[in-house]
């Protein structure tokens, strides 16, 4: 099916612009859903962002929204009626949820995650479930048990991970918005590699109830979009206290939309920006550094005071992360044992047909290599006699990193760094070298360890024509602080690039 020019133009609008068209009566929610379903159908053969498209559900939700009275619609958030894609790490009642793992194949959740309840209440149709590295473990989406997602900027390259599906779907105009989960960079790094905006809110700012747990003390649900304002609008919808999540912050969402709108005025006078000395230099591609430095210069041009700050313990963040995260993974993934839901593999003939053997055969067959690697690492780190040396030490490093952030935020309002050391890499390039893969998250991990909010926005294209991301990090529970300079930079870049970077994206699936 070929995509009409009208459809192509419609899906290229930002979520806020699509919402404005609904308000103006120029388009219905159903038409928006249909337009995106058409793009999904056209793009999926080359992008493969979706594990499951829930077109019928989305249309039903769109119709329910369209049928509302003007008065009822006015009570809904600004993005009401605009469709969204959901990372398959978040449970959706009645829609198969797999975490891209064979072990959950066919599992249809009997309940909705809190964020899904909120999207439904906001009248936002759900287009489908997006691909990811199995149980969000990976940085390229190559560890999905089902399919490999392609980067719309170069379909020979990865979209990053673990949320490569959500990022690619938004970048390819299959969805105006998506939800991701970020444990060590799984929203921000794919954002960087696909030229999208990806936000990891303050830990506890968005309820984790219904987010399949990878590492509970690090996981956070957040927005994926093409503009800073869209992420702000979405985060205000999904954020806020939830009594079903003990780690949820009692206070409501911060004024992020106002901050984004303020930032678009491109006045950053008085804002103190810190360059993190430890997040750059060696290991970062020259093209990445170049775009990053230009972006910093633009922040200065808009009146920001830029200084270098040191976070001396950040070099230990990756090591601490690869103890704490697998430890929690080893426990969180224990429940996938074949007893209650998902895959069950009985032992072969000749092997005693016991519950323990069934569990072992199920887990052997159901989990991929990367998941097994982390379960084994974590099991070891928590073992008696090793706990203090591994888990205990890692928690101490975590405290030191929290203190590094505190000291930095005593001096500056917001921190910046490149989001990822490199642009999108080719399929298979890092699959045989886990450490090289893990290095992708070197700049994003500290924010997860400290629970502070961070976001990645495009900083232009590198010499190789691929997107580069810049990361903003704000103090805990001050998410709005990063939205202002991010929106300002977005506006400044649009001017210097002569338009959004999207103008450079070739989209054959849109018939162009």
């Amino acid at each position: 099916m070929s995509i009409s020019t009208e459809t192509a133009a419609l899906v290229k609008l930002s979520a806020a612009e699509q919402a404005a068209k609904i308000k103006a009566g120029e388009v219905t929610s159903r038409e928006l859903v249909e337009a995106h379903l058409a793009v999904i159908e056209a793009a999926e053969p080359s992008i493969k962002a979706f594990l499951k498209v829930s077109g019928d559900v989305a249309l039903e939700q769109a119709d329910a929204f369209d049928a509302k009275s003007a008065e009822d619609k006015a009570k809904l958030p600004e993005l009401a009626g605009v469709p969204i894609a959901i990372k398959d790490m978040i449970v959706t009642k009645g829609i198969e949820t797999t975490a891209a793992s064979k072990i959950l194949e066919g599992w249809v959740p009997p309940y909705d995650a809190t964020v899904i309840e909120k999207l439904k209440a906001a009248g936002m149709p759900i287009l489908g479930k997006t691909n990811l590295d199995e149980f969000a473990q990976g940085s390229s989406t190559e560890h999905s048990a089902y399919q490999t997602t392609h980067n719309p900027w170069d379909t020979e390259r990865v979209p990053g991970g673990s949320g490569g599906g959500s990022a690619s779907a938004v970048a390819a105009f299959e969805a105006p918005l998506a939800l991701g989960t970020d444990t060590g960079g799984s929203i921000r790094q794919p954002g960087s590699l696909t030229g999208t905006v990806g936000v990891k809110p303050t830990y506890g700012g968005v309820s984790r109830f219904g987010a399949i747990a990878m590492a509970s003390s690090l996981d956070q649900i957040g927005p994926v979009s093409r503009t800073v304002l869209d992420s702000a609008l979405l985060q205000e919808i999904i954020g806020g206290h939830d009594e079903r999540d003990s780690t949820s912050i009692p206070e409501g969402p911060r004024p992020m939309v106002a901050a984004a709108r303020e930032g678009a005025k491109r006045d950053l006078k008085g804002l103190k920006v810190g360059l993190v000395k430890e997040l750059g230099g060696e290991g970062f591609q020259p093209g990445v550094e170049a775009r990053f430095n230009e972006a910093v210069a633009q922040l200065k041009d808009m009146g920001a005071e830029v200084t270098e700050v040191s976070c001396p313990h950040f070099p230990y963040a990756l090591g601490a992360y690869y103890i704490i995260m697998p430890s929690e993974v080893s426990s969180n993934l224990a429940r996938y044992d074949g007893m209650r839901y998902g895959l069950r593999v009985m032992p072969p003939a000749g092997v005693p047909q016991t519950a323990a053997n069934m569990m072992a055969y199920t887990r052997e067959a159901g989990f991929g290599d990367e998941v097994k690697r982390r379960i084994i690492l974590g099991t070891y780190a928590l073992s008696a006699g090793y706990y203090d040396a591994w888990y205990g030490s890692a928690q101490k490093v975590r405290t030191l990193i929290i203190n590094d952030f505190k000291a930095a935020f005593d001096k500056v309002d917001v921190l910046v760094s490149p989001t990822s050391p490199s642009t999108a890499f080719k399929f298979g390039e890092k699959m045989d070298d886990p450490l090289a893969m893990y290095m992708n998250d070197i700049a994003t991990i500290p924010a997860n360890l400290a629970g502070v909010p961070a976001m990645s926005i495009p900083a232009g294209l590198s010499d190789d024509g691929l997107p580069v991301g810049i990361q903003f990090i704000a103090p805990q529970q001050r998410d709005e602080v990063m939205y202002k300079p991010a929106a300002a930079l977005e506006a400044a870049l649009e001017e210097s690039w002569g338009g959004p970077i999207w103008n450079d994206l070739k989209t054959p699936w849109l018939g162009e």
Partner: protein
Amino acid sequence: MAEKLMKYAEACKQFDPVFGLETHVELCTNTKLFCPAHIEFGGEPNTQLTPVSLGLPGSLPVVNKTAVDYAIKLGLALHCEINEWSQFARKNYFYPDMPRDYQISQYDKPTNGNGYLDVELDDGTVFRVPIERAHIEDDAGKNTHVGGADGRIEGADHSLVDYNRAGVPLIEIVTKPIEGAGDRAPEIAGAYMRAIRDIVRALGISHARMEQGNMRADVNLSLRRSPNDPYGTRSETKNVNSFRGIEKTLQYEIRRQAAILADGGEILQETRHWDESTQTTAGGRVKSDADDYRYFPDPDLVMLHITKEHIAEIEAQMPEMPRERRNRLKAEWNLTDLQMRDILNADALDLIEETVKAGATAAGARKWWLGELSREANAKGVSLEELPVTPADVAQVEKLIADGKLNDKLAKQTIAGVLAGEGTPDEVVAKHNYKIVEDTGAIDAAVEAAFEANPDVVEKLKGGNMKPMGVIIGAVMKATRGQADAKAVTKIVMAKIKS
């Protein structure tokens, strides 16, 4: 295979037993420890569930505040230090009845630490049991093995899992090693368990019915030659669920371990099981360093913060503790130690107290509950509480006696009527038209008739031997269908033999 056992007295002479008890008490909250699933005993399998209690992907636990308050109450009753900050930890192990394959318990930061409980033994001795901790955790589901002999997993062809119990709040009370008990170890263990039961019931935090699994204990025991020696290797007998079972487990383990040690053998560090049918413990899994639960703080739950103010609020609502209450009632009712023990053994303290509150004398209440009603309960194999008679009923019967409207015999018939479901005592009395025959003429005639029928008895009575008096009274009662007052009959008989 019978194991070699040493005689109990000999074992206690040669060895010094050191024991410990880990008691699981199921709390009687309305909902589970980490989710709002309703709790009910005996519900249809797998009906009391939420995504959380099934451990579904994405579900998160949230602590039930009532359960925490119950834990604080118990901590106060056990003189524990209640920690301002306590933390839930994951105990990781795979088992089909564990929905998450880890139990949420407390590890290095329990809510209650370091307490004690003074338990009173039958001879009035008070023994102080040191408490290590009393922590909060959630229960597992229940496996049922089908197709094998007597429900065991061996020989079963399949198993069923019921997750209704999964997530029910428990408090585990762990004693420190209990030393100095000597041959009274089983007695102390039993008294301790009963004291815990009485306390949790008085606090209203658990039904504490051992037969329903509301309370169960792991019994640890080791022996050493002398109190100056370090502790020996211990065995752990799991999930003993009766007071007698706990006492007998300790007796058995003392005898078993003594026999092994006396032969120069070594005790295996293992978990064992008490078998009620054979009255023995059987070896189970050998414990080793390989048992590694990989405890770590549960990242889904923030630390529990218990303020001094909150503890003070709970302390202000604490009811009188069972031992203090017993001592008070013993004095109020003017009882001997022995009489009090009979009441406790019959589980009749609450019932008697309520009967007294309803207007009966302590002696009257005690007579009914320990006499007629205990016999009835024994015959039916139920507890006193389960009899269809209330303390108010008993108090009412006592009042009818005090008012002279019933005699002992009629009172028993009235109670029998209540037990038979004929209604309240007043209704039973009205239905059968029970009343004391006050017409002395009728009694007089009946006495005369009894004298005629029993000339030998009359001779004895006249000779001053009052023992056969009952024969005459019995005959008179029979003639008056029990409605004569025994005291009135005795008076008439005495008057006649003296004349």
